[in-house]
């Protein structure tokens, strides 16, 4: 799935989680949202695609495109020539991918690409710089001899828990993915054993939940999708929900009345600052009200609640994180090797051992012409659509062309036979025109009509040009 496609799908998923959260935050175990935000982040970061009958995207009318729109899809891809591989590689039978291909022009514009990468770099640099500058401060923290801390550490299952004190922070925090360290501010009430225990339990919950790593994942997703406002929403809410999840863990660990005591402890620390773009987990003030309310409504762990939550996560993922299922298709990703190879299937590919009907069109090479070009094209197209052939961008000698300046295309069936070797041109309004490469063609004499970047000669009177029909007219 291309970047834009993932970003859009991710946005829909984020919206769904947002609505779910707005409706049911109090009633669900907080781990639900931790998982859901993770699903969204993974969806944003990784280019896999999971087609599913249950996907919501099946509802969209363009999800199972007609033959004509298929033509348009590939025609556009062919015409563009210099496709982004991630988009070309994911040309699929769903409206979203089609959209992504059409909008591929968006990303191909150098100016926009520059802006995108500049945005990523800036945001990434910000995170790194901020992380680094805090880390320098954290390094000089000192170990503590406080007996309360020692007792607490002794009770935990994890050996080598580091708790240190730093006079340069105002609220407790946890850092470190491989060797987590809990930092306590020097200026806190060390006599208040109860609050101290709650703080340590909360920070330890961050460690147990793997929040340090989670924060990195969310930050990376944000850097890559900085242009998408939904991802900013995800970033903020995910961080908040990590805190709520830790609060819930602490309260559930305690017994009767733990809720009230913990809420009071939070209020006691309310003067501590909030740092919205921090990479570190910490007690935060602005979201305090939400946390207190959430704490007061924490329920006992129940099997039903867990089942319900699991169901919700599975359901949301199935509905929103998957992509449309086209008909009875067995979908295949565009192959990763070779530039611009596009494999499209709309019906099940033959099982191994099953024979591919050997009807071939016009022989192996253009020398053995037996049919008219249009007929050949139609038949080759049919084969492609059935998954029995694929289209490859090539140079004038029929060799795969990695340069990105495609002018020729070859349709090859599963046995490697060339069904059609054609030259394409594009006209200003974006419709590809395909014409067969004559057997005796001489590349230097090729005439093209208005190649997109103006290269190549233009000759409207060339006989071949005039007798071609456009691709879109060949369809149903």
């Amino acid at each position, binding site marked *: 799935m291309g970047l834009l496609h993932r970003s859009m799908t991710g946005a829909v998923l984020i919206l769904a989680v947002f609505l779910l959260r707005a409706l049911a935050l109090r009633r669900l175990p907080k781990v639900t949202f931790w998982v859901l935000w993770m699903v969204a982040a993974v969806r944003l970061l990784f280019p896999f695609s999971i087609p599913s009958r249950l996907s919501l995207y099946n509802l969209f009318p363009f999800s199972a495109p007609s033959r004509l729109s298929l033509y348009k899809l590939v025609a556009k891809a062919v015409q563009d020539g210099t496709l982004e591989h991630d988009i070309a590689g994911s040309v699929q039978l769903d409206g979203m991918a089609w959209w992504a291909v059409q909008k591929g022009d968006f990303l191909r514009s150098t100016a926009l690409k520059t802006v995108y990468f500049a945005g990523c770099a800036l945001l990434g640099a910000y995170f790194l710089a901020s992380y680094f500058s805090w880390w*320098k401060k954290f*390094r*000089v*923290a*000192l*170990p503590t001899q406080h007996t309360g801390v020692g007792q607490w550490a002794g009770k935990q299952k994890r050996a080598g828990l580091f708790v240190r004190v*730093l*006079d*340069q922070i105002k609220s407790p925090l946890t850092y470190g993915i491989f060797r987590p360290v809990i930092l306590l501010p*020097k200026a806190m009430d060390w006599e208040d054993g109860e609050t101290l225990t709650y703080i340590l339990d909360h920070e330890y919950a961050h460690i147990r939940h793997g929040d340090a790593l989670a924060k990195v994942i969310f930050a990376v997703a944000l850097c890559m999708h900085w242009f998408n406002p939904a991802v900013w929403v995800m970033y903020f809410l995910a961080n908040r929900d990590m805190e709520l999840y830790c609060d819930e863990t602490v309260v559930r660990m305690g017994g009767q009345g733990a809720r009230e005591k913990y809420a009071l402890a939070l209020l006691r620390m309310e003067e501590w600052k909030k740092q919205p773009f921090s990479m570190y987990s910490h007690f935060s003030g602005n979201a305090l009200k939400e946390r207190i309310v959430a704490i007061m409504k924490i329920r006992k762990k129940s099997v039903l609640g867990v089942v319900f939550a699991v169901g919700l996560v599975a359901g949301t993922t199935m509905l929103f994180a998957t992509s449309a299922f086209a008909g009875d298709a067995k979908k295949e990703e565009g192959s990763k090797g070779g530039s611009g190879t596009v494999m499209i299937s709309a019906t099940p590919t033959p099982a191994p051992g099953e024979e591919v009907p050997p009807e071939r069109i016009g022989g192996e090479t253009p020398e053995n012409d037996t049919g008219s070009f249009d007929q050949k094209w139609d038949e080759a197209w049919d084969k492609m659509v059935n998954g029995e052939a694929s289209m490859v961008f090539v140079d004038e000698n029929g060799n795969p062309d990695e340069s990105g300046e495609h002018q020729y295309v070859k349709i090859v069936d599963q046995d490697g036979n060339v069904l059609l070797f054609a030259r394409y041109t594009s006209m200003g309004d974006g419709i590809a025109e395909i014409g067969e490469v004559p057997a005796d063609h001489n590349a230097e004499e090729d005439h093209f009509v208005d190649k997109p970047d103006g290269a190549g000669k233009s000759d409207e009177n060339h006989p071949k040009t005039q007798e071609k029909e456009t691709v879109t007219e060949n369809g149903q």
Partner: protein
Amino acid sequence: MSIKLFDSELKVMDVLWKEGGMTAKKISDLLKEEIGWNMNTTYTVIKKCIAKGAIERSEPNFMCRALISKQEVQAAEAEELVGKLFDGSPNLLFASLLGSGKISGEQIEKLRQMIDEMK
């Protein structure tokens, strides 16, 4: 004397106050042993102290020497504490110390002696 030292810097100063002048390497080895700081961390803190005028560096070997004494720092901090929280009145500080019940009978005796000697 208005050098403000963070806890980390005081820790380094403490080493010099206890053991006298020594090389930066030796300080970092000691602190690695005692509190687990790696060498870079210690060197960074030492350089901060140098910048603040608390440590003097001499070659060869990055030799470090404390430029202020512990007593000077104590006096400065105490004065600031009195000014900040006790309205400039040391009496209030004493009252607070005595009232907190954290001072043993022995220490109170010593205080009394000190006051007598000052008269």
